[in-house]
């Protein structure tokens, strides 16, 4: 029999008190683990490369809002960029891929964001080294859609399902007439793509009410290309041609009572954001592009990670620290509970210690036995709490993924957790020291005669 097994026997003898004190430590550790798992998910979702693009280009405004809307689809878009600017980006020698995103609408059922894009979006990786897995056919018609895994799961949709969308967010209440059809479903990605419905960009433009008045588009183009008269002139030529065609068509419609659909010129189109991939062999391309955009047009290019990283490490990082500190205090209070429990038991155990000493136990033996008891309670409680914490995370993960879209790995071990057990051993030594000293100092003859 070693000191640990003797300590274990002693704890078993005081089963209720031992269980309660160990459980209080377990609760503290469980809370800490849950906080770390949650923040770990937030951290990995927002601070790591969760998108395989180098830059996001959008209208000038809040860089955070641009990232939240284009990557995480959590915010409304800032404004729009001229579609011509997308062409300009595609022609830039530093750009190897420029994918447009047009958004602002949501599904009527479930309020999932609608994004108009090009097939290139699905040809590129959604995260570095991870390609989309798509079940279904290609988007061919204007009303064909690809839906994310969560959209399919939550709304019970599959290939062949049809649905309607609401213009400009769920609160607007304006439902478009078009009936969209699901032609493909994405495999889970653990990103906001799971909660998104993708349309063909042309389909997005074709939705009734999405084309803006010519005068408004013209004004925007004049503002955007104020410093680039050559491109402005080219755009204005298209606008004038479109205006003329519209006028002619209006007259024809009046005379023949029928409507001819005609092609919308690029100058009349807009995109909400452009995802940019720069040449991998030239890492400074994204930097030069960013600085060029800052001084040029009414647009900006942001790193898809940095604004979120600032937010997470700044605000959320401090909240995490505060919550971890709070759970740390809970663990410390539980440690005090262990101290009180063991210390109170010392009076009852005086004779027991005297007997062990009479049998030949040295002072360091009884000291070690009491210290082993506090260590077993702290570390045992800690292990229990760690297991319960991660188990709860496993149970809650599907719900949290559904609610937040965060990719939660319930068994991911945060580096803080690795320090938890040495800290618990230290706590055990701290709370066990005084009772252990009481055992150490026990007068054997007095204890035996008590």
């Amino acid at each position: 029999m070693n000191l640990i097994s003797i300590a274990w026997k002693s704890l078993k003898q005081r089963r209720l008190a031992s269980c309660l004190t160990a459980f209080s430590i377990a609760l503290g550790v469980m809370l800490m683990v849950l906080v770390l798992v949650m923040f770990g998910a937030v951290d990995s979702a927002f601070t790591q490369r969760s998108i395989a693009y180098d830059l996001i280009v959008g209208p000038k405004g809040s860089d955070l809002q641009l990232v939240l809307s284009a990557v995480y689809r959590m915010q409304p878009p800032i404004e729009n960029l001229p579609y011509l600017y997308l062409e300009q980006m595609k022609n830039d020698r530093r750009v190897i891929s420029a994918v447009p995103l047009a958004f602002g609408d949501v599904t009527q059922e479930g309020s999932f964001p609608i994004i108009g894009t090009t097939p290139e979006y699905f040809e590129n990786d959604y995260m570095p080294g991870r390609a989309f897995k798509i079940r279904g056919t290609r988007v061919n018609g204007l009303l064909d859609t690809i839906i994310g895994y969560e959209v399919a799961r939550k709304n019970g949709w599959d290939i062949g399902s049809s649905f309607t969308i609401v213009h400009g967010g769920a609160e607007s209440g304006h439902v478009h007439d078009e009936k969209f059809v699901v032609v493909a479903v994405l495999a889970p990605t653990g990103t906001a793509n799971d909660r998104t419905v993708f349309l063909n960009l042309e389909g997005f433009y074709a939705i009734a009410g999405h084309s803006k008045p010519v005068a408004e588009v013209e004004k925007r183009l004049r503002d955007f290309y104020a410093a680039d008269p050559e491109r402005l002139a080219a755009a204005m030529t298209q606008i004038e041609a479109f205006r003329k065609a519209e006028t002619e068509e209006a007259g024809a419609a009046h005379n023949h009572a029928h409507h001819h659909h005609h092609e919308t010129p690029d100058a009349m189109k807009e995109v909400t954001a452009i995802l940019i991939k720069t040449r991998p062999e030239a890492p400074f391309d994204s930097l030069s592009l960013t600085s060029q955009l800052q001084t040029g047009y009414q647009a900006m290019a942001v790193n898809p990670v940095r604004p979120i990283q600032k937010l997470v490490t700044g605000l959320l990082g401090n909240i995490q620290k505060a919550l971890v500190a709070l759970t740390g205090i809970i663990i410390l209070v539980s440690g005090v509970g262990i101290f009180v429990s063991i210390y109170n038991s010392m009076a009852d155990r005086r004779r027991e210690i005297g007997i062990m000493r009479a049998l030949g136990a040295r002072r360091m033996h009884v000291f070690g036995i009491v210290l082993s008891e506090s260590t077993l309670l702290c570390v045992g409680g800690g292990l229990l709490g760690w297991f319960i914490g991660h188990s709860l995370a496993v149970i809650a993960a599907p719900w949290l993924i559904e609610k937040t879209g965060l990719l939660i790995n319930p068994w991911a071990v945060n580096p803080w957790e690795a320090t938890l057990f040495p800290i618990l051993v230290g706590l055990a030594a701290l709370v066990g020291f005084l009772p252990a000293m009481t055992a150490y100092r026990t007068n054997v003859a007095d204890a035996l005669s008590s």
Partner: protein
Amino acid sequence: MSLLLERIRKSYREPGGNRIPVLGIQRFAMNQGEQVALIGASGGGKTTLLNIISGILTPDSGRVVVDGSDIAAKQEVVRDRFRAAKIGIVFQTFNLLPAFSALENVLLGMSFSGRGVDRAFAKQLLERVGLGHRLHHSPQKLSVGEQQRVAVARSLANKPVLLLADEPTANVDLANQQLILDLIRDTCRDHNVTLLMVTHSSDVAGTFARVENLKDFNRPELCLQEQSV
């Protein structure tokens, strides 16, 4: 010589500072394997004497030689190790640990000796005291007589050279008294263990060839005389 006490002086200090003399023994000796009954009035210093012999207490002065070693001159940690290895103790109140089974109580006695635990020998001891079928019972589930038999087995776990028994039959019913007495004495005889048994019972003392009354060889006043000198 298995046990030799020479010029033992022991007194306690009262909270007020006065010294209360307890033991003043010029010489007391026991041969290896000898069995002695020690009688004396309550409060006469018998338990203090056993504590000094076992090294739990140290005398103010004098020599306590057990198996050739003067344990009174040794540091506490050495005395503890010596006690674990060479001295067995049977208490009046059995002093079994309630959290441990009968077998574990015997193993516990071995744990502190530094020689490791011998599970087979522990079982053999319990079988010898007639508890081979109750190895895993906790003390609460054993009768008073059975508890004392476990205590006897525990006291012999480290094959001691000296067994100190402090009124081992005082709390045991009549039926068990003779059984336990025979058990202790026979086992000591079989293993050539020196036995010093404190008893108040003249019946128990009457079975011993050598009976010592503490008041015959204890002169506590010697403590005061030496102090004044």
